[in-house]
Structures are given as structure tokens and as C-alpha cells.
């Protein structure tokens, strides 16, 4: 009995601590900055005003569009490249391919901080001949992050459960190898794609360091960059900042909650 009481009270405290910053964020977005500093924890009626002020002080709409473009393109390309590779490694298994796979996995150990400087110089060089994919372009944000060993690993693990006999049937029906992939594999692996899409979209939507390095002009800003600038201002308007954070968090939170089941299933699949 004592154990039960302890369980419930401990879990309740942890849950409250986990939720509190969210509640504070949402409540603060509806209050005046003065009330937020006074520690007001009740919802107020200033959300519309905060939202208008936000639109006046920063270019949140272009930032949302930029972030959206980057995240959607990254997600589509990532899923395509990683699933092709994961499928290739598992369906056309060979010793040599396994070795390549292990070498590719090593890239997971490389911290991004170590890649930042050489990548910046690389894109600086590209800028001179092809400015449309050089520094300060969306392409420069997307290209280095679009292929991750983690996602290849993830697709390979999931492909282990894929019934490969169907492919034989597809070949007999006259499908090409690529046809088998797009007509049979992709539709069967919907859950895996969904989980991978959530992971990739959230990572891309929230990424900060590389966009901070490579995007320079204000019109190319992404949402995290904009929030970081807002958050470091000397006379912060808390209501406005919290409104911006609510707007920035909503897309990722929304995608997460409608696809929560796939996400958990996908994470578990990657563990097995």
C-alpha cells in the first residue's frame, strides 16, 4: 500500500514537473509581459495582442515558410535515400556490403561540431561557382543533413521483418528491381516510413547549429534562429516570445501526437 502511494505521488510529481514549462509557455502567451514577470499563472486575454506584436516585431511568417520548406524537403529526400540504402543492404545482402554498412555506421560517432568548420568552408567554395547551393541557401542547410547513418540503420533493421518472398512474386510478374521497391516495399512498410518521417521532420524543424552557421541573411531565417534572437534580446517581451515559441512548437507537437503510435513502434523496432 505504501509502495502504491509512493508510486502515484512520485509519478505525479514527475508529470507535473514535465508539464509545467508547457503550461507556463501557453499561459504566458496569453498574458501581458508585466504579468508574466509577476508570476501570473492564470490564462489572460492578450493572446491576439501578443500575436499582433509578434507579427510587427519579427518576420515569423517567412521563417515558418523557410522552416517548413527545409523540413519537408529534408524529410522526403532523407526517407528516399535511407530506405533505398536500407533495402539494398538487407535484400541484396553480401559480405562486402556489410562491411560498407559498418563503415557508414561509424559516421554516427562524428559530432556535428567537428563537421561544422570544414562544411562551412566547403559550401563557401561551392558558393563561388554555384551560388544557388552555396552559403545562405536552403540547399546548403538541407544537403549535409539529408543522409544519416541512423536512418539507414533504422530502415535496415525494419527490412529484416519484411517478407522477401513477395519480391520474388513481383519479379515473376515482370516488375523491375526498382519497381519491386516502389510498388511492393514502400506500400508494405508504411509504418516504418511514418516513424522515420516523424523523427526526421522533428529533427529538421528543430535544428539550430547548422542553420545558424550557414544562413546569414535575415530573410532566410528559420524558426529556431528567430526564437533564439528573440530570447536573447535585452528587453524581452515575454508574452510575444512565448507566443512565438507556442507557434514554433505546434507543428512538431501536432505531427507527433497524430502519429504517436508509429513513433513509439518505430523506436522500439530500431531497438530490437
Amino acid at each position, binding site marked *: 500500500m505504501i*509502495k502504491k502511494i509512493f*508510486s502515484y505521488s512520485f*509519478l505525479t510529481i*514527475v*508529470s507535473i514537473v*514535465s*508539464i509545467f*514549462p508547457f503550461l*507556463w509557455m501557453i499561459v504566458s502567451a496569453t498574458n501581458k509581459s508585466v504579468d508574466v*514577470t509577476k*508570476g501570473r*499563472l492564470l490564462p489572460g486575454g492578450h493572446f491576439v495582442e501578443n500575436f499582433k506584436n509578434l507579427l510587427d516585431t519579427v518576420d515569423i511568417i517567412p521563417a515558418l515558410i523557410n522552416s517548413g520548406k527545409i523540413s519537408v524537403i529534408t524529410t522526403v529526400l532523407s526517407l528516399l535515400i535511407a530506405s*533505398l*540504402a536500407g*533495402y*539494398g*543492404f538487407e*535484400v*541484396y545482402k*553480401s559480405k562486402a*556490403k556489410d562491411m*560498407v554498412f559498418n563503415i*557508414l555506421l561509424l*559516421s*554516427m*560517432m*562524428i*559530432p*556535428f*561540431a*567537428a*563537421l*561544422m*568548420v*570544414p562544411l562551412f568552408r*566547403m559550401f563557401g567554395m561551392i558558393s563561388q561557382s554555384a551560388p544557388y547551393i552555396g552559403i545562405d541557401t536552403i540547399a546548403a542547410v538541407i*544537403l549535409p543533413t539529408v*543522409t544519416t*547513418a541512423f536512418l539507414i540503420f533504422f530502415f535496415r533493421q525494419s527490412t529484416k521483418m519484411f517478407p522477401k518472398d513477395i519480391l520474388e512474386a513481383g*519479379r515473376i510478374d515482370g516488375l523491375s528491381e526498382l519497381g519491386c*521497391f516502389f510498388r511492393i516495399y514502400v506500400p508494405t512498410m508504411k509504418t516504418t516510413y511514418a516513424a522515420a518521417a516523424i523523427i526526421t521532420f*522533428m529533427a529538421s524543424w*528543430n535544428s*539550430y*547549429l547548422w542553420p545558424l*552557421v550557414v544562413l546569414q541573411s535575415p530573410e532566410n531565417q528559420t524558426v*529556431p534562429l528567430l*526564437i*533564439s534572437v528573440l*530570447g*536573447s534580446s535585452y528587453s524581452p517581451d*515575454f508574452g510575444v*516570445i512565448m507566443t512565438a*515559441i507556442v507557434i*514554433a*512548437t505546434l507543428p512538431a*507537437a501536432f505531427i507527433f501526437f497524430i502519429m504517436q503510435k508509429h513513433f513509439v513502434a518505430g*523506436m*522500439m523496432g530500431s*531497438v530490437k
Partner: protein
Amino acid sequence: MIPARTNQDIQTARTSRSLRTKNTTIGWSFITIAAAMICLFYFYPMVQAFILSLQSGTGTNLTFVGFDNYIRLFKDPTFLTTVKNTVIYLIIQVPVMILLALFISVLLNDKTLKLKGVFRTAIFLPCVTSLVAYSVIFKYLFGSDGIINLFLLKISIISEPIQWLTDPFWAKIAIIAAITWRWTGYNMIFYLSALQNVDQSIYEAAKMDGASSIQTFFKITVPMLKPIILFTSITSTIGTLQLFDEVMNITQGGPGNATMTISQYIYNLSFKYTPDFGYAATVSYAIVIMIVIFSIIQFKVAGDKND
């Protein structure tokens, strides 16, 4: 019927032979794009970083200096401070978070527990936030007149506000608390899914043998989950060694350099101070080496318990 079957057999034999040769080329072509991209954006830059680390100078005026940069590392007080800070975050935050996540998942794994879904969703919720967004929120929560101080003053735990962000000690605590808030639920999901695969009869047997809850936790749960604990501790270690977003947005490395991490130092060396890409690349190799060392230690520690 009979000739037809023979025909088919011959055909299968032929296709399987041609398939094998076709497989090698087609199989490789499935992998090509991914392999090329990883070589281009991971391995090639690492080679470039190494070449850069042997050079010094500002901006594009780089001259070859051999291993001077590596010697400079050990005499650079800022670098040593950032290493110390990063290691402090690592050895305090990772174990605290993993134990907490394990403990929560054991409580949640109780079959008779009600409201399980509510607790799980609530504790996982922090993972939905972006690193920048939650950092900004925590910066204000920890402000000297922020909610946390107001609360602590109200319940009379403290008599005057704690200078969370301007005191070198408390600033580190604030960063550690923030990271723990963000990642505990994430690790919990891994443990919960692993616990569901553990045979319940082991626990019943332990109960019959009179094992206490604490004994069951350390003698059964932890060893059973060892592979997944190893996985999460390595990913957390790699994550903490590259810590950037949080520190940049909560304290900006301050007060002084009291909370600055190695990643942030690399950023400052390349893009904030007069750019010294050569030395920045040297510092980045220090992180790579630390990741390798800590991963080996963790494998060793996990391996020893096996015997």
C-alpha cells in the same frame, strides 16, 4: 504438365544465376546515393578537418604549422575550462537521467498501475519541444525573478533569490536540470519497451525468494536491460559531448566561461572571435577523441559486469 514444369525449373535456375550477377550491380546501386552522401558530408570533411588542424592563421590566411595546434590545446585555459564543464555535465547529468528514466519506467511497468497512459504521455511531452524553444523557456524560468525562485521563496526553502544564471555553480545546475527535463522521457520510452520483453516470472520468482524492491531493481532489472542501458548511455554521452543549443540559449556560456561547452568554443573560434579555422578544427578533433574514449569505457564497464 511435365514439360511445362521442367521448363519452369530451367527458367528458375537461369533467373537465379543471372539474378546473382544482376543482384551485385543492382544491390550496389541502391546503396550508392547514401554511401556517396555520407562520404561527401561526413568522411571527407573529417579528412579536411584534420588537414586544417595542422594549419593556423586568421580567415583564409592559413599556414602549415604541424602539430603546434595540438600543443596549444593543453596550454589554452579556455579549452581546458570547456573540457572541464563538458565532463561535469556528462558525469552528473547522464547517470542521474538514466537512473531516473529507469526508475520511472519500472514504476510505469507495474501492471496494476492506473492512469499509465497519462503519466507516460506527460513525461514524454518534453521531447516534442525544440532545443532552442525549451532553452529559452528555461532561461526565463530560472531568471533571478523567475517562477522557480518565486516558488522556492514562497515555500521558504530559500530566503533570497538564487542567481541561477549568473553564479558559476548554479548556472551549471540550471543547465543540467534543463537537459534532464528534456531527455528523461525519451530514454524512458526505450526502457519501457525493453521491460515489456522481460519475462514476468523472473520477478515472481524473486518475490518468492524474498528479494526487496531495491534488490530486484539492481539485481534483475538493471542486468536484464544492460544492452539498452549501454545504448542509451552511449547516445546520451555523444549528445552531451556535443552540447550546444541549450548553453548557447540559456547562459551563452557565461558567467565568464563557466558554462561554455567544447562545441560552443568551436563555434566561437570559427564564427564569433577572429576566425581561426585551423585551431577550431583541432578542438573538434578533441571531441571526436573524447567520444571514442568514453564509448570504449562504457563498453568495458558493461562488458565487465558480464563475467
